[in-house]
């Protein structure tokens, strides 16, 4: 399936660096379903600002360290 959004993210790498956090654990922290985390990682869904900030907060990094919008 082609990507639905131009926004890219580094969630998979950040999860690995965060003691190999699982998608389920990140989903629990962000209060979304695991399938939504999967969809975000695969570029099939652009999260709301609120969810994007929650993801960044879960990794204790700035928003720009998680998501990138190409110029």
């Amino acid at each position, binding site marked *: *399936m*082609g*990507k*639905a*959004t131009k926004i890219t993210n580094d969630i998979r790498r950040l999860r690995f660096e965060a003691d190999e956090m699982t998608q*389920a*654990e990140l989903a*629990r922290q962000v*209060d*979304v*379903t*695991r*399938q*939504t985390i999967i*969809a975000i990682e*695969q*570029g*099939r*869904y*652009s*999260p*709301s600002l609120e*969810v994007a900030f929650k993801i960044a907060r879960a990794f204790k990094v700035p928003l720009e360290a998680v998501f990138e919008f190409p110029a």
Partner: protein
Amino acid sequence: MSYLEKINISALIGMALIIAWYASAIVPQLDNVPVEEISYGKKMIIAIIAHVVFVIGASILIAIKDRNGLNGKFESGDERDRRLEVRADAIGGNILSALIVPSLIMLMMDVQAFWIANALFLSLALTAMLSFVIKAIDYRRGI
């Protein structure tokens, strides 16, 4: 596949089965029974109730089978599910508005109630199916 995505697929399958059943019950009669004598009302109500029961039953079965998540917490819908629902409903609503017009025209032309009722029923059923299909595609393709 999330819980709501599975419910959507179940609803799509249920609607297809219901439409097929209703068509098989009504269409053969068109050949040899006058339209005003075809009993469609009860079958239409049965079809509607059957779909509701089917979806509820499927939801329960899927919920029992799919009790996943941390600490056994049931995974309910989130913002992505809601966004997909809103998008599918918006598209479906626009399609329904267009499909209603032929029924209105038939009403103005005093066409037999059988045709008007079935045109409306088909409009609702097809719109619902379209919404289910759009959601199924969006769940896989993304939005």
